[in-house]
């Protein structure tokens, strides 16, 4: 088991190195740091960015919006998804809503949100609306994958609903919950930053990226992008660790038969 995790990190490292090499080659070919700064330039800009006054308050402002939007979308997505997955009429009623929210383009939501909400709330609202249908659909489909034999078992043994939720439904839904979590979180970051560029609240990563764009500071733009990518990687890693813990019981299967 340990051996395979070592090699997988090694492969990942090779993948990253290849990406950086391609980037470096690209920047040397273009020769114009306005269009494509080199990895070194971007890292240098990142160093400057991190040390500017107000960096943490911008980071925190965006992170807080992500937290709010994501939690709202996850909580409501879980509730609506569970309802939709277990009660057929509810599923039929909600599926057009989910489909509509999934297809409405980001720009329509943002433009409306800017009219309705103060600039700091716009990103939260848009992130919530875009991540919610993903979570809800995921959970709803997950409900369908709960082993019906075990559902019958629960019914026959008259297991009380709270025990059924913690004993049967949540563990069954685990893979879906984890996948929905990582998708919704990733989406929330992307959407919050993009919405910030449009609604321009006074503090936030989107605003800083927009300034970098307006003042043609492409290295700074890349620096912020690298920061967001790094945040994404950390979240993925944390999630991976959680997932490994949650699925410990599967290990038995590995050495049986």
């Amino acid at each position, binding site marked *: 088991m340990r051996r395979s995790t070592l090699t997988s990190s090694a492969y990942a490292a090779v993948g990253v190195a290849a990406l950086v090499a391609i980037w470096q080659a690209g920047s040397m070919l273009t020769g114009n740091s306005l269009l494509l700064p080199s990895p070194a330039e971007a890292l240098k800009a990142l160093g400057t960015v991190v040390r500017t006054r107000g960096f943490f308050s911008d980071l925190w402002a965006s992170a807080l919006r992500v937290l709010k939007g994501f939690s709202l979308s996850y909580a409501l997505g879980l509730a609506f998804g569970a309802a939709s997955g277990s009660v057929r009429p509810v599923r039929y009623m909600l599926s057009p809503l989910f489909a509509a929210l999934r297809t409405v383009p980001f720009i329509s939501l943002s433009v409306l949100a800017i009219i309705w909400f103060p600039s700091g709330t716009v990103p939260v609202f848009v992130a919530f609306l875009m991540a919610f249908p993903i979570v809800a659909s995921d959970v709803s489909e997950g409900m369908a994958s709960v082993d019906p*034999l*075990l559902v*019958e*078992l629960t*019914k*026959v*043994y*008259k*297991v009380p609903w709270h*025990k059924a939720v913690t*004993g*049967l439904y949540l*563990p069954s839904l685990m893979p879906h919950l984890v996948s929905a979590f990582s998708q919704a979180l990733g989406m929330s970051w992307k959407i919050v930053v993009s919405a910030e560029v449009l609604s321009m609240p006074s503090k936030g990563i989107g605003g800083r990226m927009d300034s970098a764009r307006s003042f043609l500071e492409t290295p700074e733009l890349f620096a912020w992008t690298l920061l967001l990518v790094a945040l994404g990687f950390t979240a993925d890693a944390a999630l991976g660790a959680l997932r490994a813990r949650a699925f410990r*019981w*599967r290990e*038995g*299967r590995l050495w*049986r038969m």
Partner: protein
Amino acid sequence: MEDVTVRNLGKSFDGKPVFSNLDMTFVNGEVTAVLGPSGRGKTTLIRVLCGLERQDVGDVAMPEGIGCSVVFQEPRLLPWLTVEGNLRYCMDGEGAGRALEILSGLGLDGFKDRYPTSLSGGEQQRVNLARALASPERVLLMDEPFNSIGLGMKAELLPLLRERIASERKTVVLVTHSPVDVALMADRFYLMNDDGKGADGPFTLEIGKAGRKLDDDELGQQVHKLMKLMASLGKGARDPDELK
């Protein structure tokens, strides 16, 4: 407690009848087997009895306020819980304790922290059995519960089970296609028709009720008698004396 009875019971799926015209009495405190060929009918009967399906025709008379516990054909264990966890899921602490005790009686002592995926099919089924047996419900329904248990193990296990059930005086409905199960477990039995239309019986086997520990010869004799009976009623079993 009164007997559990079914009168003129019938059920179809998609217009195709699974069984019909079933009149059976499951005597209080006894093990009644329903013997028939493999097919959906017998499982459906169990499902109707415990309320997972509704019959199309006929009545099920269950004594007031009495519930059923079920031994399903498959072990139906929650894979992410240990054996003990599984038992606690279906019952309270007391029931779980009883079930563990039954389990060690079935040869599975010290298994409470094992996960289902690390158990063999037969071991899992024994957990399934212990779980149902430990339930406080007065009626026990068993749906072909010994399919994954080999003949040798059956000869050892089933008498133990019979003892345990007898001591609790549960009303047991055992549905099976194996004459060996009937010989080892049942006080009386019905023979379902191959097409599901009705059943013959009740019949009893002429062996004592106590113990039911049969040696190989006795078991062989009982199965032989059963098969002759089935053949005589045209129940799809060949007369064993004609098999050479």
